């Protein structure tokens, strides 16, 4: 019988939640790396027992951990992230040039086909790759070296490369997103990049339609329809039908189009999930009601999903990397909150129940569907 393994990164450690295919009863393992911030944990599609974790601390910096037994044991691997060549500068908050400085790894994206290859999105925004299971990391400097790089500015949370999407159907095609620079696409395995932000409209920047400078919070793609991308931007939920060449807004009837995560149903490329958040200055759900919104039409038309979610006095946030789906039938949907709850739905969002209620603030949630 199939099973699922939910990988949770929190402010104070990592947790591994496992269940059989019914997704009713859960075993909780952790905290792993207690006391450390775990920005992201993700498994290799090519070897599901191989997991990578980004472990960091304001005191002691960055560590990358790897497990080869599904999270039971871990070993530190390489944690040297040196930018390729001269560091260069980006814009600081006050508009002055500021040297690129490595701070932490936000996101780890293992290769779909090679368990030894994994990509890392870092702050200050850069893309790194390891081809030896995380022992050594090399920057793919074409992204940070894009001609617009010196104009990139950090968002409030730092200038992070938080989204990496590898298009397995089109070798060499990758997408990344940077706050607050925007979305980027490579068609040559990361050597060269171009901004793909046409159609975005951001009131908070001098030119609302600028080529870069947009605070993209998250991108999502269904692997069976890779030309369609969804985006949760600082404000606005967006959709592209041409691999990012152009975007249109699909916020439709959402109560607010601010938010962080966005994800796509495992079997229905037109079914999309977001978690509306009140505003950029009020990072909690509107009215204290935690609601996932689902569109079955690829955007524009959204329905609130409330059953099992708190509908009063709820003032948590759901961060950009804290939502994931499994590939069971029916599709399971998971998200974690800054209040330490991890909610699961085994019926594509119709009903929800907490797996755990009292973890540290959740930074990331990933799911592995295991045979």
């Amino acid at each position, binding site marked *: 019988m199939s099973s699922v393994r939910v990988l949770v990164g929190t402010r104070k450690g990592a947790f591994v939640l496992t269940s059989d295919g019914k997704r009713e009863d859960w075993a909780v393992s952790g905290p792993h790396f207690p006391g*450390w911030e775990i920005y992201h944990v993700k498994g290799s599609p090519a070897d599901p027992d191989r997991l990578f974790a980004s472990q960091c*601390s*304001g*005191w*002691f*910096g960055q*560590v990358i951990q790897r497990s080869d037994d599904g999270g039971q044991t871990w070993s*530190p691997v390489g944690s*040297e992230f040196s930018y390729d060549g001269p560091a260069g500068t980006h814009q600081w908050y006050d508009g002055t040039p500021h040297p690129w400085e490595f701070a932490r790894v936000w996101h780890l994206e293992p290769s779909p086909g090679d368990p030894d290859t994994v990509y890392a999105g870092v702050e200050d925004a850069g893309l790194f790759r390891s081809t030896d299971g995380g022992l050594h990391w090399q920057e793919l400097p074409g992204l940070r070296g894009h001609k617009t790089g010196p104009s990139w500015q950090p968002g409030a949370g730092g200038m992070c490369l938080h989204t990496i999407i590898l298009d397995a159907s089109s070798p060499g095609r990758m997408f990344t997103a940077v706050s607050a620079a925007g979305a980027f696409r490579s068609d040559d395995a990361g050597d060269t990049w171009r901004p793909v932000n046409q159609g975005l409209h951001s009131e908070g920047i001098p030119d609302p339609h600028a080529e870069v400078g947009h605070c993209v919070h998250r991108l999502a793609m269904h692997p069976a329809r890779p030309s369609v991308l969804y985006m949760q931007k600082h404000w606005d939920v967006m959709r592209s039908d041409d691999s990012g060449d152009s975007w249109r807004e699909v916020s439709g009837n959402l109560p607010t189009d601010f938010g962080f995560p966005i994800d796509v149903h495992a079997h229905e490329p037109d079914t999309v999930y977001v978690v509306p958040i009140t505003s950029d200055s009020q990072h909690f759900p509107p009215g204290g009601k935690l609601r996932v919104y689902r569109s079955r039409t690829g955007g524009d038309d959204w329905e609130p999903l409330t059953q099992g979610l708190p509908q009063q006095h709820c003032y948590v946030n759901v961060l950009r990397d804290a939502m994931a789906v499994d590939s069971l039938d029916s599709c399971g949907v998971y998200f974690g909150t800054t209040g330490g709850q991890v909610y699961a739905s085994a019926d594509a969002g119709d009903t929800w129940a907490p797996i755990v209620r009292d973890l540290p603030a959740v930074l990331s949630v990933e799911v592995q569907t295991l045979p």
Partner: protein
Amino acid sequence: MIRVVLPAHLRTLAQIHGEVTLDVAGPVTQRSVLDALEASYPVLRGTIRDRDNGRRRAMVRFFACQEDLSHEAPDDPLPQEVTSGAEPYLIVGAMAGG
């Protein structure tokens, strides 16, 4: 023999139980002790000092003999009590938040 005490998080990371003892060739300075520590435990590289410029990470402190050595020059000799092994060299996570 130089004795080094690490903060709990770094002991866990490096799988160290108790104090570390190090043989340090040449002058015993903060730099030579940390070089020897990192040579013995490569996983600690970057966790105490910046990998590129060798500077102490902002929220790590160095103590010995009831003195804060964090702002001393890295090539200054360490106190004789540390050199002799009578006193440990303490690497401390700064008190800050949590």
